[in-house]
């Protein structure tokens, strides 16, 4: 069959757009090897001092550790709530399902800055009541992140549920299975990859969350993105280039690895 491929002009333009997409990521690499203490391109010598900073400076280690804990907590919580909710919609098809879904997706579609101000209000109200889940604490940030990421868990689990054969659940129910059995023995095994994907995506979203985090932290709960934000706002710190290179390498490895596996599998069949 003849396939209609894009022509020369389209290809050339797309190459330019592709370069535009990758350029800022590549630009970070030389800057990270500068021997100077400010943003500059190394000319005579290369230095690993900014990579050493990442290991030796406690700030960075603490930021990474805090972001990891917040990510795991909020992703776990959001995935659990999102999965229950999606199951409820799928199994019972309640009246006003569209409206309920709209409420669940609200934090995803609202402008980030409005969510940030809303969660700022929420946490300073909580601070008046207790000191544990409060403004500028780990649990406070985890709770706020959960709000922001829970819609994504709902979307991923719902998409995965849409592919499950409803008759399986109806059969289980007709044979007298309880709600718990239907959920844990019948439905969940069929959507486990959707649930795992939801956990993974919500973790990544919490790990790099910054818009809300700026509003709800100050000096105690300094996550990794918050630390980078401070370094970018005041005097640009080349240690940010080093951490950026590390993050870019991780993402690029995963994305390229996935593409390679897909390509090999397609060749195999």
């Amino acid at each position: 069959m003849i396939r209609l491929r894009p022509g020369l002009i389209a290809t050339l333009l797309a190459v330019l757009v592709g370069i535009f997409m990758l350029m800022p990521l590549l630009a970070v690499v030389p800057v990270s090897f500068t021997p100077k203490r400010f943003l500059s391109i190394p000319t005579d010598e290369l230095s690993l001092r900014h990579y050493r900073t990442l290991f030796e400076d406690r700030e960075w280690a603490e930021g990474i550790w805090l972001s990891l804990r917040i990510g795991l907590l909020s992703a776990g919580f959001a995935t659990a709530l999102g999965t229950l909710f999606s199951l409820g919609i799928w199994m019972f098809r309640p009246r006003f399902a569209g409206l309920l879904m709209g409420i669940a997706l609200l934090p995803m579609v609202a402008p980030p800055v409005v969510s940030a101000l809303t969660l700022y209000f929420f946490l300073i109200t909580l601070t008046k009541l207790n000191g544990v889940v409060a403004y500028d604490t780990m649990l406070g940030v985890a709770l706020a992140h959960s709000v922001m990421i829970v819609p994504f868990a709902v979307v991923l689990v719902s998409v995965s549920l849409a592919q499950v054969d409803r008759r399986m659940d109806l059969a289980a129910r007709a044979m007298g299975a309880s709600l718990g059995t239907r959920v844990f023995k019948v439905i969940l095994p069929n959507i486990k990859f959707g649930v795992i994907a939801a956990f993974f995506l919500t973790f990544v979203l919490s790990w790099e969350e910054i818009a809300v985090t700026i509003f709800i932290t100050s000096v105690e709960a300094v996550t990794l993105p918050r630390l980078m934000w401070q370094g970018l706002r005041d005097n640009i710190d080349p240690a940010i280039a080093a951490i950026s290179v590390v993050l870019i390498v991780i993402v690029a490895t995963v994305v390229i690895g996935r593409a390679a596996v897909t390509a090999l599998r397609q060749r195999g069949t």
Partner: protein
Amino acid sequence: MTRITRPLILLAPLLAFLALAYVLPFAGVVGWSVTLPEPGVQNYAAAVTDPLILSVFWRTLRICVIVTVVSVVMGYILSLLWVRGTPLVRMLTELCILIPFWISVLTRAFGWLALLSNRGLINGWLEASGLIDDPLRLVRNEFGVIVGMVHFMIPFAVFPLASAMRNVDERVLMAARGMGASRTRSFWQVFVPMTAAGLMGAALLVFVFAIGFFITPAILGGGRSVMVAELIYLRIFQSPDWGLAAAISVILMVAISALLTLLLKQLSPKGAR
């Protein structure tokens, strides 16, 4: 009885959580907007009459329109290759879309600083090659903000565009070519109109995202071209006026809700026809 309680066991946790942690606090923000510093609607009055705030609204609108048009055009070109290229081209295009997409907004903004700032790579190359004597101002102004935002938004434009392009029936294109239309003509008069719904969807999505966006403008604008979201941040943390910040947030929320309603109509099957 059980007929009602059973769905509730599953649905209630999330709904209660969001009601408590999101809906009620938003009501609190609305409360701020009409009670701080004193009861009344003076904050809303200020938001629509204060020339400074109005200029921020206009700048936001202008930047968002430019960002939307540029991202959708660039996204369209990229989607074209992602959907219709050879397998190798498709894979390379996918990398150009997905690697930036998964990388945090801070890293990407930093990358643009490294390229565009006075001591950055571009000015470095231009000076070394003798083309310029003084560095060009490419960042900490509106240009830098637009470049950074376009870079952030392109993947979000690509996803709806690519899905619209995948739905185009190839036989229609072959029919057009078979009946003597040139490549250019079958592209502009057949392919583009068939992806019009995707174009509208992508444009609305990018616009809605761009309008409430504040990290990239704050870093690449350097305080010189403040957009509406950054204005809210500044009115909370730098020159506090919580009532005004709350009022602007409410206005923003209403505007976005209106746009989203439009987007949903566009995406629903009836709207697409």
